[in-house]
């Protein structure tokens, strides 16, 4: 728990603890992930009216799940794959923990922004977007530094690693959709044959 909080302020120290002393917890990482998912829902539904452009009646949990938990999993898998290729030292478990812990600043600041948005007027809305930028920025910095520590990369190599991770995420998503559409066609094909047989019996 202490390590998790430490990631926000001292990511190098925290990640060294996780890496060498095993103070990280997969359970806690999962908890943060669930919180990340919940934050997305809260942000969508409870952001104050002047700043909320979403339709509250058109919420789709599947899409939110894919864009939070799904994205996290895609990120972790890509990073593990790319890092082992680039000679990173991190274990899969460490990458999972580092990525999840680094989401904390985003979750906290986003929740703060949601609360603030309910008591803010449009004129003061600039402050809110500042908070949101800070939320993303802080998490990105924490993520970069923790992954750098986990894999024991130099800074330059970390940047290359992150870029390669993003590209491999795109490739995975592309292949995924390809396989999906292929299987869908296969399904339609089988379904048609099934129908033909049924109608002729």
């Amino acid at each position, binding site marked *: 728990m202490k390590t998790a909080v430490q990631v926000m302020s001292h990511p190098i120290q925290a990640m060294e603890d996780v890496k060498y002393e095993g103070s990280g917890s997969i359970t806690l990482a999962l908890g943060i992930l669930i919180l990340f998912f919940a934050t997305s829902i809260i942000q969508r539904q409870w952001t104050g*009216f*002047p700043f909320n452009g979403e*339709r509250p*009646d058109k919420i789709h949990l599947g899409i939110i799940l894919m864009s939070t938990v799904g994205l996290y999993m895609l990120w972790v898998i890509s990073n593990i794959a790319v890092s082992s290729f680039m000679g990173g030292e991190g274990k899969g478990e460490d990458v999972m923990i580092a990525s999840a812990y680094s989401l904390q600043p985003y979750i906290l600041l986003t929740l703060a922004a949601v609360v603030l948005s309910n*008591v*803010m*007027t*449009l*004129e003061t809305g600039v402050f809110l977007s500042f908070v949101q930028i800070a939320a993303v920025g802080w998490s990105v910095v924490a993520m970069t530094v923790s992954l750098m520590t986990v894999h024991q990369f130099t800074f330059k190599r970390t940047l290359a690693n992150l870029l390669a991770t993003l590209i491999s995420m795109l490739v995975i998503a592309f292949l995924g959709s390809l396989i999906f559409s292929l299987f869908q066609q296969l399904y339609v094909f089988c379904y048609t044959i099934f129908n033909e047989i049924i109608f002729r019996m």
Partner: protein
Amino acid sequence: MRRHFSKTVRGFKPAALWCAVLLFVSSILAPISGHALPEENYFSYVYNEWGDAVSAPAGYSPSGVWYGEDMGTRGLKSPRDLFVEYGAEELYIVDSGNNRVVVVDAAFQFLREYTGFAGQGGMETLNNPGGIFVTQAGVMYICDTGNKRVLVCNTEGELLQNLGLPVSELIDENLDYQPEKVVVDSAGRIYVQAVGVFHGLICMDPMGEFIQFFGANRVEMTAAMMVEYLWKQILSREQRSRMASFIPIEYSNIYVDSDDYVYATSVHSSSSQGEIKKLNALGVNVLHIDQFTQFTYPKDDYGDHPVAVIDTKQVDSMFADVVVDDQNLITALDAKRGRIFQYDSESNLITVFGGIGHQIGTFQSPSAIEALGDRIMVLDAKKNTVTVFEITEFGKLLHQATNLYNDGYYLEAMEPWNQVLSRCANYNLAYIGLGKANLRLENYTEAMENFRLGYDKKGYSDALSELFVDFGRANLV
């Protein structure tokens, strides 16, 4: 609360259910209470902030359909224009297929007809006339489309002027001049809308001398056009000249109001915006488009939303005619779906009625629209009829409320707005109107709730800051 249920949580199915229940109950009660429930053969709706059509009571109800025979004359044949002379309450019908102009009174009783006019060179007959305008002094301007001229005559049937294609270096002499619609403002300037003239309306002085092209549409930027434009940068002059050039869209109809503003409709617009324009004396569109709400569609997107694309063809409302009454309510006729859209002077949708069909209140090929008092008349070129719509109780409430609201009488408009909402919970404008009244009454929390339901973020925000000011005064100072 009811609106919260019907709009925010579960779409408008519960609302439809309620309507069905209400309809059922009222159909039982109707014979007892003595007045029949008006029934329309079309679906009435308004648009919510998301651009979804939500059901609403009809603002107008058809009260009669008039064939030529009913008026005491021959049957009409592909009539193309209607004109109401307010002073005498006479209705002019341009019976294009029969090459005549029929005049009837407000009760649709035949008064007279014009097939030709006595000029100096003998009788000038009409050939497929397209439009008519009658001044208060009783001078008729008739677009004699087939003969490529505009005839100016008096009501006795004497020809005063014969205006052909005006002579100007700006106008191509070989132009196939087909004047379709004409209006004349109080200064006597003549505005002619002609087929294929995309430079704007042809504006002439009372003597028929060309003044200028008036209020041309602009070329709209589309993705396909950007690509063409890039190509044109590369290609040589000869190659360029063989490519299609970009021309702005033409107007489909014009109307002039008592303040000399010229309203013009366009049939097609690739961005689906600005199909209705209100042109001032300089030809600039002054139709008020206040972007204070953050709806998902632009406020100058008149007609139906969203624009459907079927087989790469854009299916959008096609406005054929427009009429503006003395309260500045704009009523426009969509020839594509036979619907009539009524807007207030701030481009807020008030009501939609009509449709394509065979029943009363629907059309086959609507060609013109006119208003006489609270009645709206629509000409159908295929059914050869004039359909009369009477305003409903609900429509009257809407008019009363929007007029008070647009004139700034927010408090006085509260009562009609509340009545509107008690009949239909889908009116955003009603909530905004109530919100503004409550803001003036310093009921800030209620105003916030009203603005939230009306999807007015600016209003909500203003009410909230007023609330803070109050809080600060009470607790801090």
